[in-house]
């Protein structure tokens, strides 16, 4: 287990190095190697999660180590699929280090889950968790696209083109990418939440129980719903949309981690260690 974690970490690290080198040298082969290294890391990571699953017989989301590892996995999965679609090369510079960071933090927590509640052995749970995590990956990328957009926009507006101006793609592409990420993330989070409600109804007999995690997820959902609506109706795009997707990601981080530490609730035990 420890070895596999280290191998995965190593590949994430090399991918990060490859993408960073690409940022500076702008050589196609560096981008390619970053991409394939990340793919390899993803394969190792999948094996790691698969192993944990096989060993305990339950979906490995029962302590902070597993949760972080799973979110890193979801981010990488979404990025790899997405990269095929959008060809926004520079995005790897954001995604690879983020996945690496998640893995490093994850590896610092104990691997073994503390205690396991038997209600967590359902297909619905796996479905719910996977979708939510993938949507988090999508929103994380949307936030990345937003950051890159702001950097590039600042370069063009201030007329001080520099390092990033040359290396970043057009504003239009960054904006469209962020939008596509939010659309995908929003769809996933919607289906994920609905599956959560269904599961809650099945386990506890009610769809909604005013659990802090539920409330914050609801806030998150409404936030992105507004963002999408305003974009379609009034044309919230460019700078405003970029800033909103960064704020949205902050809300997401709080929903994901903050709620568990600061507030109580039935999602709490996922982040114990």
């Amino acid at each position, binding site marked *: 287990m420890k070895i596999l974690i280290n191998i995965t970490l190593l590949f994430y690290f090399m991918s990060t190095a490859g993408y960073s080198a690409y940022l500076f040298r702008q050589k196609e082969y560096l981008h390619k190697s970053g991409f394939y290294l990340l793919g390899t890391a993803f394969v190792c990571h999948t094996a790691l999660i698969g192993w944990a699953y096989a060993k305990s017989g339950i979906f490995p989301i029962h302590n902070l180590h597993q949760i972080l590892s799973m979110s890193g996995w979801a981010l990488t999965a979404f990025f790899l699929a997405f990269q095929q679609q959008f060809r926004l090369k520079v995005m790897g510079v954001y995604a690879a280090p983020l996945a690496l960071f998640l893995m490093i933090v994850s590896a610092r927590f104990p691997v073994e889950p503390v205690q396991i509640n038997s209600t967590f052995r359902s297909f619905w749970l796996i479905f719910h968790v996977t979708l939510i995590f993938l949507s988090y990956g999508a929103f994380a990328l949307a936030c990345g696209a937003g950051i890159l957009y702001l950097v590039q926009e600042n370069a*063009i507006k201030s007329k001080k083109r520099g390092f990033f101006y040359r290396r970043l793609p057009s*504003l239009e592409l960054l904006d469209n990418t962020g939008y596509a990420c939010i659309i995908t993330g929003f769809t996933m989070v919607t289906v994920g939440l609905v599956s959560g409600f269904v599961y809650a109804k099945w386990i506890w007999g009610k769809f909604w129980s005013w659990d802090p995690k539920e409330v914050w997820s609801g806030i998150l959902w409404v936030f992105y719903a507004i963002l999408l609506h305003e974009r379609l109706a009034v044309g919230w795009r460019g700078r405003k949309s970029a800033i909103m997707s960064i704020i949205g990601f902050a809300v997401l981080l709080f929903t994901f981690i903050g709620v568990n530490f600061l507030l109580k609730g039935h999602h709490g035990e996922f982040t114990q260690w």
Partner: protein
Amino acid sequence: MVGRAALAEIAEEVYEHPEEGNIYQLSQNMKANHVSHSRFLPECGLMRQEIVLMGLNHKTANVELRECIGFSADEADAALPAFQKDPAVSEAVLLSTCNRVELILAVSDTEKAILSAKNYISRSKNLTVPEFEKSLYIHTGDDAVRHIFRVAASLDSMVVGEPQILGQMKEAYRMAIRKKTSGVILNRLLHKTFFVAKRVRTETGIGDHAVSISYAAIELGRKIFGDLEGRKVLLIGAGEMAELAVEHLIRHRVGDIFVANRTFERGLAMARQFHGKAIRFEEIGDALTHADIIISSTGAPGFILTREQVKKVLRPRKNRPLFFIDIAVPRDIDPDINRLANTYVYDIDDLQGVIEENKEDRHREAMRAERIIDEAVIRFREWYEGLDVVPTIVGLREKLWRIAESEMKKSLGHSLSHLSEEDGQAVRRMMNAMINKVLHDPTLFLKNKGCYGDKALYLDITRKLFRLDEE
């Protein structure tokens, strides 16, 4: 001199008369052709050809002199055969642009060739030799090769990295081919030149960055819009630079073009030129709702577009980006507009700033280009030095021996493994004798016992037939 075309003719003749189509006949034909076409004294064939470059450019000659010496297409057409008429010159290519004149020659006698080229220029351009001699540079050998590579890669251009020079060079070469004044050496040299220039362009960023106002505007447009295809353009006023920018945009397949002019008739005429639509000056405010790129170049003393006007259209536009290019002095577009969301305003000074930055980048990339060129010069020299009798014969012999050795090793190891050591030696001797016999006639031929005229051609063919040059 027999060029490729002549060889092809011979080959065709043979093809049409199959009964004559044996090797002997072919060589007889060639010989006959040679003798009748050859302008060389027999011993010229023995001499080694040298590449000579003579020229002047924007650094060495002022514009008056360049104008005077520059060759028009017709003049170059006449000049090429005239240069070649000199017995010392076997091949010639002439490049003449507004910034430079370059005469590339393959010669057997450098001094004589230079003298006769100078005399020709003096005669045809009505100048005395001392009048232009000081502005001339003359390179030979590696230096000449390097110079040509650098010119084609646009390292020697007034604007480093400008792309036109390569096209002009290709045109010059095409003319030499038409006039049959380019032979083995210059063919090879120019093909290498185009290859090197292309390599420099793809492997360094020398041509990446825009260095003219209209290119800079387009580069920025692409950073904002990504693809310019289908973007609508509004041109306000007229002016050479603005029209040039619109033409560039059209090449990037922009969508509708609106033209607004104080005098509507003038606007109509320009709209026709760009296949666009003329609008009245008062309609500019409405046009902003549709247009994505606005190029302004009027003589108006104050701003013709204010922040309020633009702010109004942002909502109906659903915040799609707007890019203003203000080429006018004094400025037409309120710079405050740049502070609005999703709108970008660049005036002429901003664009000039982009150009200056890009120029610096180009010079940095030029250093990397020089390395590629140095490498190519060495490669060319290797080929060129091989293009001599002795290395070619040595190469031939080595190649045959390599084949013989490996076959012998195979046979002696397997089907002939029963042979004794001495028998093996006998086979080896037989091989050796065979190679010597096979090579006897080609060696004699190449040593000029049947090879008149352009020896480089036969050496080159030999090297190609037996693939003596690794590519």
